[in-house]
């Protein structure tokens, strides 16, 4: 399969990239790892006239804790995330998710920034970032802004980013003591998108839920926060009954569509079950 012709630009700084995006407007697309965009171009679902390859801009690939935040550069690959000792130890929700994204060769190329900027509810990082209450740092010709993750996803393949903006960094409140997180998705086979996926991040003090984030993958037109389940847990002593109740709400509140991965009922029911399991796993990790 051969994509339509395009002009290729390879800026080495963000400023050069913005200038190109301003010049070509609607006819241009940024390219990072290319593992969502190139398959779409090969199928001619996307035929941009100009590709602006931001993959060579220096200084956008890092994972660090700083000022009470975990900061991850947009060009950090899934493989970089997978093998990061910091994430394995303190942010297992990210490593859980990464291991289920694509396959090892896909992960060598795909980037975290691209995964979020693509705005696809089937991708796994959106739900993880909802659970972690991340902020998205976007830079553009007019400077930089911070976007709350709850404002970021605007619908089917649409995000809050403007045509010219580049997602440069993801910021996550640093994991404190008493916090635990987990992610799992049901997939038919390696490399498949989720039939449903659930991300949980919780912090506990004396068995009482202090902070809670629950994000759902691919069971809604856009990445979904399970707000009612979160509200049910926040400030309460976490019991098995409460976990059951919160899980039931997640199953009820999602809006999956029937497809090859299963019926609506099936997806609701695995969403409920996964929510229960991920709450239990996150709590177990919080206590460890």
């Amino acid at each position, binding site marked *: 399969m051969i994509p339509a012709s395009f002009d290729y630009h390879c800026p080495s700084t963000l400023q050069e990239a913005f200038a190109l995006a301003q010049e070509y407007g609607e006819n241009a697309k940024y390219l990072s790892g*290319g593992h969502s965009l190139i398959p779409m171009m090969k199928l001619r679902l996307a035929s941009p006239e100009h590709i602006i390859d931001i993959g060579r801009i220096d200084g956008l690939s890092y994972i660090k804790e700083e000022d009470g935040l975990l900061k991850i550069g947009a060009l950090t690959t899934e493989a970089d995330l997978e093998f990061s000792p910091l994430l394995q130890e303190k942010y297992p929700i990210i490593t859980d998710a990464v291991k289920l994204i694509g396959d090892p060769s896909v992960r060598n190329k795909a980037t975290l920034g691209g995964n979020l900027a693509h705005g696809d509810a089937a991708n796994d990082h959106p739900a993880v970032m909802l659970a972690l209450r991340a902020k998205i740092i976007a830079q553009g010709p007019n400077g930089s802004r911070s976007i709350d993750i709850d404002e970021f996803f605007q619908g089917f393949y649409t995000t809050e980013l403007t045509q010219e903006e580049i997602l440069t960094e993801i910021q996550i409140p640093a994991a404190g003591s008493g916090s635990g997180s987990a992610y799992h998705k049901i997939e038919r086979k390696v490399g498949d998108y989720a039939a449903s996926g659930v991300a949980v991040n919780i912090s506990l003090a004396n068995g009482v839920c202090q902070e809670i984030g629950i994000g759902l993958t691919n069971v809604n037109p856009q990445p979904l926060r399970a707000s009612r389940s979160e509200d049910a847990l926040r400030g309460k002593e976490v019991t098995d009954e409460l976990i059951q109740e919160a899980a039931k709400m997640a199953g009820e509140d999602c809006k999956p569509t029937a497809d090859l991965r299963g019926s609506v009922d099936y997806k609701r029911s695995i969403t409920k079950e996964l929510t229960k399991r991920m709450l239990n796993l996150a709590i177990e990790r919080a206590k460890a």
Partner: protein
Amino acid sequence: MKKVTITINGESHTQEVEPRLLLVHFIRENLELTGTHIGCDTSHCGACTILLNDKSIKSCTMFAVQADGAEITTIEGLVTNGNLHPLQEGFKEEHGLQCGFCTPGMIMRSIDLLNHHPNPSEEEIRWGISSNLCRCTGYNNIVKAIQYAAKKMKEETTVEAAAN
């Protein structure tokens, strides 16, 4: 057209290419290195796997222009001084192939796998080659071939260390 310089198997190649030229077509058609295969052409099967700066990637899901300045290894670059790479030997000895269509990709992927896990468990091998599909072998002998290579490579490093 864009000018690219790509080092493949230690040899530098400079060519003018169309930006939409996929890396796998650059390798197979422009350089006539047909050991790298195209199976699905949709980023799933791994037949087109090569090493790009030592990492396994699917060359059907990358443009040649993105590889400008990179170092690439394909299956043709593995033999040294007439000796098979331990993975090539492993696939031969353990019957890790039948039709052989998936084999070049499987071997290139396994190099990256063994870089990360020099002593892989069976589970690490099976997850590690989950980017590559084989329609013939049922994978059991592929796992054995990779175990063979891991053992051989460990012996080779021990011998080298003893010699130094």
